[in-house]
């Protein structure tokens, strides 16, 4: 459904592959024939509710077969779907629904009927209307604040991406993919939608199984998963049992750097697989790929080279293009990228005209990268205060601002501490106002109103003492981080 052509493919599968299993979730399997029937029932419900192509609907990304059927139904009635995290706080959800002018928030019920609420807020100014003839799906950036940015995925971007991915990984209707990431991540375009487009099988990982190595290993083994894509945490869980091996053909790691110690474990657990490091962003989808040769891999795995059709540019601190090997901010232009945030004022900051003035805009990734003499690229880290928490891009300054907005908070500093399992975990150091009895739990409650769960700091230390400051008066994040890491 990210595109009309995908709908056409699904209609063909419903006839030609009607008895082939399309989706597996827990004990439930549905065939392409059943999926088509389910989507038709949802489509009838949507029409009865008065859903029309004039306004998008919001479908929170609950991980279930019914959510997929509901999304197919939305696209088949011609409406676009905004797909935010199912863990988004209620006020943030309302805000983005108003921004996208959604008519309904829809959740697939187990009984094949959608639960729904009507959105009746007025659309704020400065947000482009969604064009359902060009865009079927809208993601949100992971949004460490209460207001994620809305990213439309043009149909043509999805079709281009599907064609690239199918060729790159030699995917066919015989493939079985593991859908580990939530549906609101751009990763689902590949591990759910490209696979369904081909008539393959998608094995959904329910949230309850997502941190459970034993269940994940059983899913991959029992369903003969041939294609796995995920953040390093997934591979840590899949490979923690040293005796388990899988016949998987393709292993893609993405989202953050793979810890070096995991590479030998991957080779042992996936003896037949080709291993790929892939780099991409919600705004551009996959942009770089590197096939890893474990025999020669060093401690830092490159992101490799731009994928077919992608152009990459490095800019120095003055904004000049670096032509030679060197290090600078990475900008990319991909055939898969968004037409721009719905809030058009945000676009000037991150989309830049091409340096040579030819063609469409480049996206500023916010990542520093080095181009080696052989033309391969290596990531050097973020330009700003963004880190990955459990694979999700999170801006520590934005989390800080949410905590500091509590009326009893004098000052707050949030630092990201490296964590073996999660990539990073967040720690908050908070100074409360004099006479306040604010507790960390109350502050958590405040944060949970607007922050997605991954962005709520794992630890919050709250007290009356002033925060340590640098000579320029900023919170001394370095000192706070060192203190936390010493335990």
């Amino acid at each position: 459904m990210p595109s009309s052509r995908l709908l056409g493919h699904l209609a063909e599968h419903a006839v030609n592959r009607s008895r082939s299993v399309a989706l597996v979730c827990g004990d439930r399997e549905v065939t392409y024939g059943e999926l088509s029937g389910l989507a038709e029932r949802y489509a009838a419900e949507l029409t009865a509710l008065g859903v029309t192509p004039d306004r998008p609907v919001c479908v929170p990304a609950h991980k279930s077969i019914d959510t997929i059927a509901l999304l197919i139904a939305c696209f088949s009635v011609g409406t676009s779907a905004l797909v935010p995290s199912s863990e988004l706080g209620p006020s943030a959800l309302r805000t983005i629904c108003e921004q996208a002018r959604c008519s309904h928030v829809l959740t697939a019920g187990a009984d094949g009927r959608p639960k729904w609420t009507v959105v009746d807020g007025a659309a704020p100014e400065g947000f482009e209307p969604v064009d359902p003839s060009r865009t079927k799906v809208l993601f949100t950036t992971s949004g460490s604040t209460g207001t994620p940015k809305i990213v439309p995925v043009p149909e043509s971007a999805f079709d281009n991406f599907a064609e690239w991915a199918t060729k790159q990984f030699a995917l066919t209707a015989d493939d079985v993919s593991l859908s580990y990431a939530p549906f609101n991540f751009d990763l689902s375009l590949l591990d759910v939608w490209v696979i369904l487009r081909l008539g393959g099988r998608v094995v959904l990982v329910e949230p309850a199984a997502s941190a459970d190595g034993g269940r994940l290993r059983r899913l991959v083994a029992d369903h003969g998963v041939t294609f796995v894509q995920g953040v390093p945490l997934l591979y840590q869980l899949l490979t923690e049992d040293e005796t388990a091996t899988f016949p998987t053909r393709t292993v893609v790691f993405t989202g953050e750097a793979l810890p070096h110690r995991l590479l030998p474990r991957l080779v042992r657990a996936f003896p037949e697989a080709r291993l790929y490091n892939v780099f991409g962003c919600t705004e551009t989808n996959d942009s770089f790929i590197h096939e890893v040769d474990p025999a020669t891999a060093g401690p830092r795995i490159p992101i490799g080279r731009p994928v077919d059709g992608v152009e990459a540019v490095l800019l120095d601190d003055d904004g000049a293009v670096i032509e030679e090997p060197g290090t600078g901010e990475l900008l990319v232009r991909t055939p898969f990228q968004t037409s721009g945030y719905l809030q058009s004022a945000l676009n000037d900051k991150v989309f830049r005209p091409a340096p040579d003035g030819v063609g469409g805009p480049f996206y500023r990734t916010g990542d520093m990268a080095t181009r080696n003499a052989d033309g391969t690229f290596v990531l050097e880290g973020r330009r700003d205060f963004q880190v990955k928490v459990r694979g999700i891009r999170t801006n520590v300054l934005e989390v800080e601002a949410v905590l500091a907005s509590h009326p009893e908070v004098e000052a707050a500093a949030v630092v990201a501490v490296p964590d073996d399992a999660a990539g990073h975990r967040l720690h908050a150091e908070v100074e409360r106002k004099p006479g306040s009895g604010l507790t960390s739990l109350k502050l958590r409650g405040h944060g949970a109103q607007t922050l997605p769960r991954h962005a709520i700091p794992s630890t919050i230390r709250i007290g009356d003492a002033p925060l340590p400051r640098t000579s320029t008066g900023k919170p001394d994040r370095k000192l706070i981080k060192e203190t936390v890491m010493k335990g």
Partner: protein
Amino acid sequence: MDLETQIRDYIVSEFLSGEDVPDLTDDFDLIENGVVDSLGLVRLISHLSKTYAIPVDDIPLLPSNFRDIEHICAFIRQSPVAASG
């Protein structure tokens, strides 16, 4: 020490860096408020399994069973091994 106090002490020392506050009521939602995340849930369940001799295979990993101290205690009480022992 009653079960609620044991679980409370464990949450305070493992997930709240030792900060014990009256706000941590038996129905404070640990998952909604980001105290226990999915990795934390696995840690919590492994602790329950060891401490209360509940076979880990019998533990359904449903976050709703572990949402707050009340649910965790109810879960331990209704597990067959803990009930018989």
